């Protein structure tokens, strides 16, 4: 898969190195949900937000704050997350888009599970503020 440049205007991303964000590309809703639930249970991540970024592409935001070491461990513990993990490790932080991109709509929240008082709260704060971007 070729990297897709932002070729129309600008894009805004939610950035963190203190919590777990996932970008799950090219998969069905059920698979994305399974991944989120599996990681939630296995690593006690308190809660998650499942977001649809475009057709067959999903984002997941987990509630618990984690160290970078733990984030790395969690990301590499599941085969489906490895590709995303490798690219994000190069950056040293995790980023998810919260605005429109190349004519595609901004991500839509599909499901909220468990607690939402830490990283999810931070995410929702900017998600709501940048509603018109």
């Amino acid at each position, binding site marked *: 898969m070729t990297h897709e440049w932002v*070729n129309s205007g600008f894009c805004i991303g939610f*950035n963190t190195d203190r919590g777990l964000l996932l970008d799950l590309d090219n998969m069905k809703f059920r698979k994305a949900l399974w991944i989120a639930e599996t990681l939630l249970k296995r690593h006690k991540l308190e809660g998650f937000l499942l977001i649809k970024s475009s057709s067959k592409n999903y984002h997941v935001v987990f509630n618990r704050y984690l160290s970078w070491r733990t984030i790395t461990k969690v990301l590499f513990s599941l085969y489906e997350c490895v590709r995303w993990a490798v690219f994000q490790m190069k950056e040293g932080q995790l980023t998810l888009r919260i605005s429109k991109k190349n004519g595609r709509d901004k991500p839509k929240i599909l499901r909220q599970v468990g607690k939402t008082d830490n990283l999810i709260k931070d995410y929702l*704060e900017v998600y709501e503020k940048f509603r018109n971007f």
Partner: protein
Amino acid sequence: MNMARKKQLKVYGTRIRGHRERWVVKGKGRYFWVRRDSKGRFLAYGKWSPKEPLEKTLFTETEPLIIEYERGKEALRKVREVVREWEWIDFEAES
């Protein structure tokens, strides 16, 4: 555990760089440049990105801008300021 909470946003895209340089732009395919001879025969190709000039006089950069904030309102204000500072461009990279 009391971890310092660093809240950040990233603004990214292709924006115009201030200075002008001389640069020869090769034909672009979808994220690849393609060089052909005068008869249109294929000579070479390489990876292309908007980090390279879009035209001989149009230079761009794609390095993301990091914005630190504490509250949502502040984030919105800072992003608006940063976005206004730069000239963002649209481009096509279709083969």
